[in-house]
């Protein structure tokens, strides 16, 4: 049997077992193992399993995962979301859809210290939703804003999305994190514009708030952002300046937030234990997925499918932007059914070599891929952020939340177009980095 045929059969088995509900990490390990056995020998495949898993769990750059996860957990426990919201609410409340814009700004701020979009949606759901309800905001707009705002955590560094992309494609995690900063700010601005124009077009969505806030109050409210600013500057400034690597940045960020939480006395023993348990659970899930993907990628490489597909696409002579559009459409489709990490793990072994062979910048593609994963967090029927919010806003039908986030998807698409036309928006900061 030719290696390509084995690769195709392996991929079909992988899809079949995936749809049967087998955990993705173990499907990839099993199919990868069987594939390598077919293409080499069982003696070569057997040691691969244990060596690969140990190589993944005892790999220094991967220590960043629990550190970023726990950083986000401490940021949530510190009540940063509430403080950010209170600050931005004072600055933006008088704008059309002002509370929605404040929510987006607070989500962007929280994203600067946390990589978890679900945590952002959950935290903001408990803080901003009651406020928007109090001022008679439409349920669709209020829940849509929070679900979409939560996705910013996946793009604005420190972001787990970039860490996983870097792990799977062997790109610099530091450069990827830095590359996400400007697109993250742009997306926040686009989300804010979506809120603004939605309310301008349909004022019934969000009644205007005429209550004035004095300049003194506004300036005093800025105290609510110092923690976020401090941690972000230490973490991202350290990476950008080349003083610390991303793992060290994760440790320092987590330590800073741990001290803040202790100082504010906001962490009980029980909550601390739960934080550690959640950190382990998420880290195990991610590292096992990466380990499974590594074995499966090795099998795919042996089958020569990635190189054959790349050569075939290059030989078609079609515009590279057409191929990119197709890849983006595939990501959009997959995002309807798969969670972000799984989507990356399953597709990058084939998609990334194609992108590189077409001459796209790998760091730029990292940002575009993460943007599409973000879209997957809010597309029906499996939008993780929407599910999270539905758990909080129990009186709002899930279909209303999905309708509410739809305009924000346009923001993501618009940003992908902007970044494709002006890739320098992504690449200029990483190209100027200290190391």
């Amino acid at each position, binding site marked *: 049997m030719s290696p390509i045929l084995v690769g195709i059969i392996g991929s079909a088995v992988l899809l079949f077992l995936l749809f*049967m509900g087998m*955990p993705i990490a173990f499907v990839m390990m099993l199919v990868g193992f069987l594939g390598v056995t077919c293409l080499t020998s069982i003696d070569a495949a057997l*040691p691969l399993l244990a060596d690969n*898993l140990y190589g993944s769990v005892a790999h220094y750059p991967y220590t960043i995962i629990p550190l970023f996860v*726990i950083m986000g957990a401490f940021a949530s426990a510190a009540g940063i979301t509430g403080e950010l919201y209170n600050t931005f609410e004072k600055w933006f409340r008088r704008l059309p859809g002002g509370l929605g814009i404040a929510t987006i700004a607070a989500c962007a701020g929280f994203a600067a210290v946390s990589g978890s979009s679900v945590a952002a949606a959950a935290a903001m759901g408990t803080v901003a939703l009651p406020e928007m309800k109090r001022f008679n905001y439409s349920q669709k707009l209020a829940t849509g804003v929070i679900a979409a705002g939560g996705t910013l955590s996946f793009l604005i560094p420190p972001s787990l999305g970039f860490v996983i992309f870097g792990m799977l494609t062997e790109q610099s995690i530091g450069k990827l994190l830095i590359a996400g900063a400007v697109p993250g700010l742009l997306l926040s601005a686009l989300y804010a514009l979506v809120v603004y124009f939605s309310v301008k077009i349909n004022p019934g969505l969000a009644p205007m708030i005429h209550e004035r806030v004095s300049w003194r109050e506004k300036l005093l409210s800025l105290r609510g952002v110092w923690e976020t600013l401090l941690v972000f500057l230490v973490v991202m400034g350290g990476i950008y300046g080349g003083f610390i690597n991303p793992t060290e940045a994760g440790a320092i960020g987590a330590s800073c937030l741990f001290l803040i939480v202790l100082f504010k006395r906001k962490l009980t023993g029980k909550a601390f234990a739960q934080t550690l348990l959640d950190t382990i659970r998420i*880290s195990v899930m991610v590292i096992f997925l990466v380990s499974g993907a590594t074995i499966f990628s090795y099998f795919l490489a042996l089958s020569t499918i990635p190189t054959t597909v790349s050569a075939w696409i290059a030989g078609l002579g079609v515009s590279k932007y057409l191929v990119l559009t197709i890849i983006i459409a595939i990501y959009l489709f997959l995002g309807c059914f798969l969670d972000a990490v*799984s989507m990356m793990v399953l597709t990058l072994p084939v998609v990334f070599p194609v992108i590189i062979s077409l001459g796209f910048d790998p760091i730029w593609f990292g940002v575009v891929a993460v943007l599409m994963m973000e879209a997957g967090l809010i597309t029906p029927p499996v939008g993780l952020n929407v599910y999270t919010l539905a758990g909080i806003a129990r009186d709002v039908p899930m279909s209303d939340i999905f309708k509410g986030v739809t305009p924000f998807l346009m923001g993501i698409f618009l940003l992908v177009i902007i970044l494709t036309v002006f890739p320098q928006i992504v690449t200029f900061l990483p190209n100027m980095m200290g190391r």
Partner: protein
Amino acid sequence: MGMLEGAGKIIRKASFFLCCAGMVFVMPLMALTTVDVISRAIWSKPIPGTFELSEYLLAIAILLGAAYTQQVKGHVGVDFVTKRLGPRLRALSESLCNLGCMIIVVLLAWQGYERAFEETTVSDMLRIPQTPFRLLVFVAGITLFAEFLLDFINSLKSLIGGEK
């Protein structure tokens, strides 16, 4: 059946306590790296072996937490097809999936054991042998196998019409 339930409880508790043992190492991992950076920045003296200690700490935390993650269904899968199946078909697909997982993790445990004792490498700076940490792959494989076995038995019970 009582014995089976008793064994199930013991397995669930063992996975949980192993995970608790692993999670204890997360804070030292954070502290070690932070102190290393501070020490390097202020006194130009990094803590010797920070890299390798971090790797070992991560290995302990992740491998001891693998089974508990399965217990709380933290290993992600695609469920939009199986959710639409009838109870019998769903139980059948769950049984097959658990069986597939059992096969791969038992191979993992076996190879983890074999490779651990073949390994003679020590860490670069502190000369700590890798073998005990590599043996944790075996521990992770065995405990994962036990968790999948419990899930397999439960799905079989559903398949043959018993209670879940």
